[in-house]
């Protein structure tokens, strides 16, 4: 048993070592994506592929959590053939990488084990985004990739340094296949130096406290994190909770890709089964085996125990099943560039399921992905190709205690800048930013409103520029919870003359749309989903929102039933408007019907009257409101049934609706028609 003071001092030393790794990499990296963008993460791990420590706040969960898979891949391949002085590289998504640009360096250290022989000890790992890893386009990531081979060099776990001797041949081969060779080698050496510094710290710690004490501290920190997580899970209502969330695809009609999550809360453990998720696709929205568990962990941690350290102990109570060949565990050669989008979708699905065990103590949904926007073309001044790249944030969801936040990085991701300074952009690129504003009325209505998205207008000043976008939630907006409304969807459009154009049939997936001089690219990001019934929002809060311009007067009336006249709130009219709005809601009995399963997306059958009231036809998308959790999105398969609304028994489970003929509120979401 380790004493509590030594334990705390060693914990501090671990976290401090990780922070020192960050500082060292920033100081020595060659590419600006590392030393300015800080798109990398550092971690200490142990021989059992457990995460020992990360620096909470700067390291990206989506880099860090998958490192355990990378390490397991190394162990699987090399077994006991790992020696002091060895260094391994890995980026292959199918064995635990993220996308090919994120390259992990694993730097094993050894120390005597209980038997006396050397065993793997605590050691550093760095995962860093390399600016280019080869592939079909500069920067390697492309929304047009149909196979992973177009996304760059795949590095399965390989040994690049053997007992202190670099394998020059393999390094030459790697660097020869990447653009910007000098930068790549510089970054590689910076990673190596970072691991070396961390190794000195770990060795000093072992010398000071003894190897056995450090190992005991690792075990104790894991056990404590595990115990905290188990205690938090134990407080949940046991049961099996099911939910599904969707990614957008299709050309003429929205045909969704689904992530289905079956979350079993039993005693002090959670099991998540993603069986039933869509088969892998030939587009970028696929991930390897590590990303979905990363999303699961993010949600469970956020809603159960956000304050604890991040180490593998906290994962022990979680198990995740990701069937092979699906978008959540794709096999070669599916491209994996859209890994962020899939991770978000897993998170939405797991949150929707877990909401049922949390009695709705969740938050409105988020922007659904990276919102990657590229404007590129020949620079009129130099003739070189310029790429103006931003990934603007949206609003966060409302929650029980407060409104969501406006246009900000979400709580699932690291804290990075997503829009560049206008005064820098206009010097560097042939564009002019004409507007940067909050999107009025974009926050999902609710007792607690979702945060607002932003609008950014970019005027094109040069010939030959093109627009590419990779985003989600551009058709299906971020959902509200517990009766809250959806936030506005992401929107990426082009204004030409007086006309506004959709640059692609499927919104959010734009590949090299040709722009003309004078075009304005209008980027509008999603608002967060609302929380709770908007008609119960305090009138003062709605009035304050209108005064601030977060909500328009029209929006106050239509979304919140608050009538604001010249001289303030019209109390009588507000009461009447709220009553009328309640009466207008489409509330119908929901019945169970067999044979309504389909491959992707829930199916719903409506009768003609209900369909008319909702204003939807077959192929349209509706949401069934869940007053204690996330709403279920469903595709109208058929209009003209006997029952007002019928769904499969599985869909009823997703809504946690027990019994028959429960009355639910249904809202229209989208016509389902694209282009």
């Amino acid at each position: 048993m380790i004493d509590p003071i030594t334990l705390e001092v060693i914990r501090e030393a671990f976290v401090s070592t990780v922070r020192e790794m960050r500082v060292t990499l920033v100081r020595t990296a060659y590419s600006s994506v590392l030393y300015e963008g800080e798109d990398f993460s550092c971690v200490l791990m142990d021989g059992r592929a457990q995460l020992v420590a990360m620096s909470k706040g700067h390291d990206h969960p989506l880099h860090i959590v998958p490192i355990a898979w990378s390490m397991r891949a190394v162990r699987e391949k090399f077994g006991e053939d790992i020696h002091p002085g060895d260094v391994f590289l890995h980026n292959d998504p199918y064995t635990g990488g993220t996308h090919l640009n994120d390259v992990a360096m694993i730097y094993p250290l050894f120390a005597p084990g209980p038997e006396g022989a050397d065993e793997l000890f605590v050691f550093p790992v760095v995962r860093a985004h390399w600016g280019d890893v080869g592939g079909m386009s500069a920067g390697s990531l492309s929304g047009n990739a149909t196979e992973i081979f177009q996304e760059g060099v795949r590095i399965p776990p390989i040994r690049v340094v053997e007992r202190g001797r670099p394998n020059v041949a393999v390094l030459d081969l790697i660097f020869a296949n990447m653009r910007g060779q000098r930068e790549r080698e510089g970054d590689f050496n910076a990673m190596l130096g970072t691991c070396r510094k961390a190794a000195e710290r770990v060795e000093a710690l072992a010398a000071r406290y003894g190897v056995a004490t450090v190992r005991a501290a690792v075990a104790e920190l894991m056990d404590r994190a595990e115990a905290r997580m188990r205690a938090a899970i134990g407080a949940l209502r046991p049961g099996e909770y099911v939910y599904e969330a969707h990614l957008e695809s299709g050309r003429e009609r929205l045909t969704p890709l689904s992530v289905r999550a079956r979350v079993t809360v039993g005693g002090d453990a959670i099991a998540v089964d993603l069986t039933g998720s869509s088969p892998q696709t030939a587009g970028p929205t696929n991930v390897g085996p590590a990303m979905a568990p990363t999303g699961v962990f993010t949600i469970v941690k956020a809603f159960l125990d956000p304050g604890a350290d991040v180490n593998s102990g906290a994962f022990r109570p979680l198990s995740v099943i990701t069937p092979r060949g699906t978008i959540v565990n794709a096999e070669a050669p599916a491209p994996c560039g859209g890994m962020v989008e899939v991770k978000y979708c897993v998170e939405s699905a797991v949150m929707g399921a877990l909401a049922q065990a949390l009695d709705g103590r969740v938050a409105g949904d988020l922007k659904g992905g990276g919102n990657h926007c590229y404007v590129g073309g020949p620079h009129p001044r130099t003739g070189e190709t310029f790429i103006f790249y931003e990934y603007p944030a949206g609003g966060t969801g409302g929650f029980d205690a407060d409104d969501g936040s406006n246009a900000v990085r979400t709580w699932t991701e690291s804290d990075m800048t997503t829009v560049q300074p206008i005064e820098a952009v206009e010097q560097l690129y042939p564009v002019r930013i004409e507007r940067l504003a909050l999107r009025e009325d974009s926050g999902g209505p609710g007792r607690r409103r979702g945060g607002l998205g932003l609008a950014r207008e970019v005027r094109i000043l040069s010939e030959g520029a093109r627009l590419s976008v990779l985003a989600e939630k551009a058709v299906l907006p971020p959902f509200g919870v517990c009766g809250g409304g959806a936030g506005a969807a992401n929107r990426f459009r082009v204004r030409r003359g007086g006309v506004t154009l959709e640059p692609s049939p499927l919104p959010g997936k734009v590949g090299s749309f040709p722009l003309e001089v004078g075009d304005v690219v209008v980027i509008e990001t999603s608002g967060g989903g609302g929380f709770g019934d908007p008609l119960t929002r305090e009138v003062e809060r709605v009035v304050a929102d209108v005064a601030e311009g977060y909500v328009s007067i029209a929006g106050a009336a239509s979304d919140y039933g608050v009538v604001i006249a010249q001289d303030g709130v019209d109390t009588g009219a507000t009461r009447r408007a709220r009553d009328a709005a309640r009466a207008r809601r489409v509330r119908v009995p929901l019945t169970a019907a067999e044979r309504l399963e389909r491959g992707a997306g829930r199916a719903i059958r409506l009768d003609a009257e209900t369909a008319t009231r909702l204003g939807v036809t077959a192929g349209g998308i509706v949401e069934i409101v869940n007053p204690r959790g996330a709403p279920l999105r469903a595709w109208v398969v058929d209009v003209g049934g006997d029952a007002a609304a019928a769904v499969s028994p599985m869909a009823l489970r997703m809504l946690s609706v027990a019994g028959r003929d429960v009355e639910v509120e249904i809202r229209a979401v989208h016509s389902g028609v694209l282009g």
Partner: protein
Amino acid sequence: MFIAGIDVGGTFTDVTAVDATTGRVVVTKVPSQPRAEGAAVLAGLTALGIASADVRRLVHGTTVATNAVLERRGARVALVTTAGFRDLIEIGRTKRNIPALFVPTFVRPKPVVERKHRFEVVERLAADGSVLVPLDATSVERALDGVLDAGAEAVAVCLLHAYLNPAHERVVADATKGRRPDLPVSCSADVVPEYREFERFSTTVLNAYVQPLMDRYLSDLEAQLLAAGYEHGVLTVGGSGGMMTTDTARRLPIRTILSGPAGGVSQACFVGAAVGVRSFITYDMGGTSTDVCLVHELAPATTADTMIGAFPVKAAQLDIHTVGAGGGSIAWLDVDASLQVGPRSAGASPGPAAYGLGGREPTVTDANVVLGRIGSARRLGGRIEIDLAAARAAVADLAGRMGGELSVEALAEGIVTIAVARMTSAIREISIQRGHDPRDFTLIAFGGAGPMHALALADEIGVPRVLVPRHPGNFSALGLLASDIKHDDVRTRVGPLREQLGVLDALFEEMTIAAQRQLELEGFAPDRQRLVRSLDLRYRGQAFELNVPIGAVVGVDTIEADFHRQHRTTYGHANPDGAVELVNARLVAYGIVDKPAGEPHRRRAASDSALGSRRPVWFGGAPYDCPVWDREQLADGATVDGPAIVEEFGATTVVPPGWSGTIDEHGNLHFARRPRS
């Protein structure tokens, strides 16, 4: 005649005065009065028995601006900005800027200017400063109608690209003054003439936000001092370590932000220069937090970008790293039963349990009392009596909740160890960040709790030398006495360095003339002025830049070579073939003030009078019978061998076994580890 330095802290206001003729230094502490800082200033002088009329120069550090932002008690600000961009101040760079990873219930702090108080004017400049859309006069009048209707108490004028061409901002400012001459107006081009609009706007809005408070505070202070017979100007310390006149502090109050720890760093530089210690780390531990700063070759690390709360501030600042661990930091048990120290602090009220003011939770100070490191015979700061039983009870209660396996002394030592571990990390990180090994530096320890933990900290980091300067408890206030007036100016011109050389001379000329005029107005003849030029440079393609000092007349080859060298030092590599880009030209102008002569340390033979008493003090789980030295009585050349305690007004130095200290001719204590015998 006296020069007085007053440092307002969270708990105490430290007052230091030096007799300009004899060099004699007198110090005291009075309780801080958070909403009436001026009263504490006068109370301090009275406590020292100094008549205001006998003060020749009064220098002070104030937290008025810092606290106004942190506690959101500033003025009602209106913003006038370019059409299409009123939300820029709220959207910023979309960063949370608060710890919120995995926290779905986080709420992003709103800017200090409400959305309904932001008004747009029709105008637009291009990226080269030329006019794309002329300023529309009607839109200005409409915006000002809004500003006045809103009942604004201060106005920030923030237009895109104004750093290159302030004309439109000036017109808006003049129009505002035309309608309401008394309304303070901050233009972004005046507050921070640098590019990157969000950081510039944020700084300007915060400047406007604190302006009315600072103005009122300074007016009150000046009136009270005048009534008491003090007839000279009041100087205020800025975050970059230099002094400002009240005129500057009123115009640019944002430059006083986070200036609290600056005096200590300045004083450490004076002491370091005097005793030949040129590279050191300052370790300033107070009641609620600890400030550390790396000083290399007598040049403190500086930065141009800081944050206050969740908001960026662009102003030249000493790069001081703050750790939320001080004497008042509370030891507590987390839900997983792990022992934590801080960041919550008992502060001044209720304070540590040992203060007997109602505090029940054990703090770092209580742990030191339990260990005998803080004695109960001497009153803390001359006024607070130490209650050993209360301190023991608080620590014992925590030990009980931990299962009772640890003795009270063992837990107390553990609390100190954990606090020291936090500070060890901070010092290692700031050193590595600047490319240094902390073991090559001396630790200069001050602040109420600094000398108490400095040697333990030095052991952890591996620092071989520690300097505990004279008057460590009033060190920061002392630093104010000898600081020069400092003006920071900057111009942004982004482009290849070699192409921008032509405009550089003109930019420096412009800044030089303005600085000289300003210093002359403040009474500094040309021989009391010192101007320092530097450039912010980067390689093409980088987004951030390095500050490279340059001489008055320097060739471009030398500048580039210096930049490559500095890039190598900072980042470990350089690219001698890379194209170097200019971003900013900076000028720092100093007005050199008379430095008070150092008080000679009393030289006399070591006497027993310095040995106050003996008491048991715990180190490494065992009590040692320790001598307790009275620092004021220690003679020049005297040595102190650990284990020992050195007590003085405002601070206690703890000397663990294995360390020895010597008093130098200035009265500083130099510690080194004794060679193991």
